[in-house]
């Protein structure tokens, strides 16, 4: 065991030329920044990839080991340490500051998100790992070693505490991931600029360095100003809340936003559900049909890739098989993997009774055969394009009927009978024209407004008087009451929506234009 060198044998200190106490404050700041980038990467990857334990664990692991790598690399830097330190701050500011926008873009537009993720985490970690050793070496001749170690490490850990408290309590709720990472990048660059002042005696001419600092700060400030356009979301300003997931699939743009205690799904900018009140919508969609056919075994769901209708269907013990036909694999994958959505649908798509088919439901109905279904739910986005409008035509309802038992029930989401009254009754009349008996109903879904459905069957049937006990919204009385239409939503004469006229798309676009 070697003898510890006596403290007094340290080399004598040179005349102080630097303002060491102020440099300790920059330790506090850079420590906060470093932790923020780590938290941003961890949060972002658990939003996008799910499984937050794994994501945080791997991000922290990679980040810390990268810091170790940075610390080791620091010994290869010899000359001009002050200048190196300022450059380092600017590098951290750029890579760390833009990390969130880069990662969102990588997720939305590449297939190599994990590569980019760990690459960014590695880069930020390595740069941050270089910071403290270099700063300590700059200060080593001016502060006693024991004071240096104590001061730097204390402030490093306190900075981490600040960051870890600020992030969940203030930054995430108020700024969101993208603005947080850009803001802290700006702070890092500011530390760089400030250092040019504090380290002036070691730097020589500072004009070019300061200009560099200002340029980096300007880039980050522009990023911050255009955060909406920068992130995955040109539409971030359209959405009231922060975007936590966005993906351009082959068919549509899928966006999840989060805020005000709930989260929302948008397809091509149109709200599909809010976790705050989707139970009203999905209970109304699913349970009335079971009220008429409580013994239903085989259930078809067209659309509804979010899995929320499946969740309601699976509450019925008689159900043996559910076939979900949704166009977009990106949508059903998200319903399976995205932790917020998966939690909301109770992992319904992984239930052994559920079979997911990714196909255009109309083409699927036309080109496949199979045993008939007892219940069918038609839960497509509203008919605002011809490609969607075809899914509300008499031809669609005829194709659907070919796949059903004679006393099967159909429930169709049919837009708002209040805001788009003609569209709503056009859907009902089109279903009638295809040979169905219809019973339209409606309820209030605050995120949407007054919302309508059409319950139908090939044979006459009575309005359901019983629903499954234990639901959040529907009771027996509430279920029956949905079938009464007040005067301003009552039936109006409309044309039938056929493949060759697609009148519904025109009606729908015209009617909704008044409300937007």
């Amino acid at each position, binding site marked *: 065991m070697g003898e510890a060198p006596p403290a007094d044998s340290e080399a004598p200190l040179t005349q102080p030329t630097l303002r060491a106490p102020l440099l300790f404050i920059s330790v506090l700041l850079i420590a906060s920044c470093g932790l923020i980038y780590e938290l941003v990467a961890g949060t972002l990857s658990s939003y996008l990839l799910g499984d937050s334990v794994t994501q945080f664990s791997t991000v922290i692991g990679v980040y810390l080991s990268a810091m170790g790598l940075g610390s080791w690399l620091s010994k290869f830097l010899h000359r001009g340490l002050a200048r190196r330190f300022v450059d380092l701050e600017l590098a951290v500011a750029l890579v760390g500051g833009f990390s969130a926008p880069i990662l969102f873009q990588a997720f939305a537009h590449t297939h190599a998100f994990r590569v980019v993720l760990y690459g960014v985490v590695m880069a930020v970690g390595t740069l941050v790992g270089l910071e403290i050793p270099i700063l300590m070496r700059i200060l080593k001749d001016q502060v006693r070693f024991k004071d240096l170690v104590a001061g730097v490490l204390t402030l490093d850990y306190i900075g981490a505490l600040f960051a870890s408290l600020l992030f969940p309590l203030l930054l995430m709720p108020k700024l969101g991931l993208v603005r947080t990472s850009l803001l802290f990048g700006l702070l890092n660059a500011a530390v760089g600029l400030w250092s040019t002042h504090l380290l002036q005696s070691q730097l020589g001419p500072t004009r070019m360095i300061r200009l560099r600092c200002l340029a980096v700060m300007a880039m980050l400030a522009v990023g911050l100003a255009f955060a909406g356009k920068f992130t995955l979301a040109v539409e971030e300003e359209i959405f009231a809340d922060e975007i936590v997931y966005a993906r351009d699939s*082959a068919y549509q743009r899928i966006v999840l936003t989060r805020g005000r205690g709930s989260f929302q799904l948008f397809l091509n900018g149109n709200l599909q559900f809010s976790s705050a009140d989707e139970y009203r919508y999905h209970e109304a969609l699913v349970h009335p049909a079971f009220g008429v056919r409580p013994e239903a075994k085989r259930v078809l769901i067209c659309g509804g890739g979010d899995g929320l209708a499946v969740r309601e269907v699976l509450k019925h013990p008689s159900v043996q098989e559910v076939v979900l036909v949704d166009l977009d694999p990106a949508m059903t994958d998200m319903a399976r993997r995205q932790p917020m959505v998966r939690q909301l649908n109770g992992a319904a798509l992984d239930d052994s009774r559920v079979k997911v088919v990714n196909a255009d439901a109309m083409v699927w109905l036309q080109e496949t055969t199979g045993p008939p279904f007892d219940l069918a739910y038609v839960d497509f986005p509203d008919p605002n*394009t*011809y*490609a969607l409008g075809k899914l509300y*035509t008499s*031809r669609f309802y005829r194709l659907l009927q070919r796949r059903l038992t004679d006393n099967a029930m159909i429930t169709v989401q049919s837009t708002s009978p209040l805001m788009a009254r003609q569209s709503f009754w056009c859907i009902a009349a089109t279903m009638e024209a295809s040979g169905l008996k219809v019973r339209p109903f409606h309820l209030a879904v605050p995120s949407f407004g007054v919302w309508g459905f059409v319950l139908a069957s090939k044979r006459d049937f009575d309005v359901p008087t019983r629903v499954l006990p234990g639901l959040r919204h529907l009771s027996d009385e509430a279920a029956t009451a949905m079938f009464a239409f007040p005067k301003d939503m009552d039936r109006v004469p409309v044309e039938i929506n056929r*493949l*060759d006229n*697609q009148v519904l798309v025109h009606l729908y676009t015209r009617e909704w234009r008044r409300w937007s």
Partner: protein
Amino acid sequence: MKRRDFLLATAASTLPLACRRKPEFPFGGELVGLNMALGHRLLNAPQPEPDSFEPISVLIVGGGVAGLSAAWRLAGAGVDDFRVLELEAEPGGTSRSSRNHVSAFPWAAHYLPVPDRGNHAVLRLLQECGVVEGFDAKGDPLFAEEATVRAPEERIFAYGQWWEGLYLRAGASAEDERQYHAFFQEVDRWAAFKDAKGRPAFSIPRSRCSDAPEARALDGLSFATWLDQRGLTSPRLRWLLDYACRDDYGSRLDTTSAWAGLFYFAARKQGPGEDSRPLLTWPQGNGFLVDHLRRASGDRLRCGVMATSIHPDQNGLLVTAWDAVHQRAIGWRARRVIFAGPQHVAKHVIPDLGTARPAMTRIHNAPWLVANLTLRARPKEFSFPLAWDNVLRDSEALGYVVATHQSLQDHGPTVWTWYRPFAGPDCDAERARLLAMDWPTSARMVLDDLRPAHPDLEGLVSRLDVMRWGHAMVRPVPGLLWDAEFLALARPFGGVHFAHTELSGLALFEEAQDHGIRAAEEVLAVLGRPVRSWR
């Protein structure tokens, strides 16, 4: 030579080689179909005699819509002692279609306006195909929703974006609108016209049209002159009408008779002031109807066989043909022949026909280039969405039809059929231009034409096949349609009966079918089996 110079020289010498190896197009394709070489060779060279002449009641020469309809009529009358000879490997003529791993697609004709109650033959055919689902209380037929063109039907590319419909409303002046309505008022007037016998001026097929002098007078002038006389000079209106002429006749306003121009619009009206009749279509276009019609012939249809001569004989007609599949001459002794091919072929096959009937030289056929583009994905769309028929205003071509539109596929791979008539005044010169085109020239023409609307198209094409139609459609030039000698070309000639759409002066499925049925019913009468007409 220094080492460096040597390397440079080597590199320089391989450069052109490397350039040559790089194909001009990132996709494959070929000129397909139409056995022009065989057709032309057989008509211009002496042919070997067959070993024997097989006796048969009726021989139908030509397996297009006219020939297949004649066979359909014969089979419907219980006559099965017939053969249909078709030069090409596939029947259907200009209603031919094909199929690949993505979709079925047409090679030419691709739609049919829904027939009115009086068009018995088309109604009968559509009932057999399951396209007529029943009749309403007034007795009007109800057509299957999946066979009527799905909306959106048409769009037009102009001013750098797509617009709904074929008539460009964007930017139209009040005068444009006034003339548009004035033209359709004229159409309505003619749609309402009934002659002394109660016949309409315009109906499909044209055998149902009135021959009253005031209607026939329309054939004496060009559509352009007729429009000039009424002060209809709106460029938008005239573009629309010129498009209609190119689309249906392969001609222009000034080479189309006013009768034919008005026929296009008035014959399709459900009634005066009402909309045009909806269109029926299928992924493979009118190939759907051909697929049904050919069933009536079964194995009596012989493809790859071309009749080279038809001579009268004391017991009927001796027909010599060349079987390109087995490379041998074959012969029939037929009681009657239905010649369901074009007149320019008939004059080579039937001796003395050309000299006896000089009016046949007045028939001019417009050449067409048709391309089928198989796309692995669809181009990006920004304005009005992809329709069934997609037309570029500033183009000599007619745009493209989307094969997967009717099969409801709105995503993923598709097949587009692109059409271009060679509509210049001189058909022979235009044909020479067409026949000089090879595959790369054709592919370049297609891509250049579509580039303004779809700059990203080339990278999405996985295959581009081209068919050159030398004689695609008869042109209804002024003065042809009601000329007595022209109309007489449809009469039998020494035991040969004629059936072809060009005998109407209008290239339409319904005309071909009408002539096929007429010729078959003429033959049935001669064979002593008179029937109630299907027409």
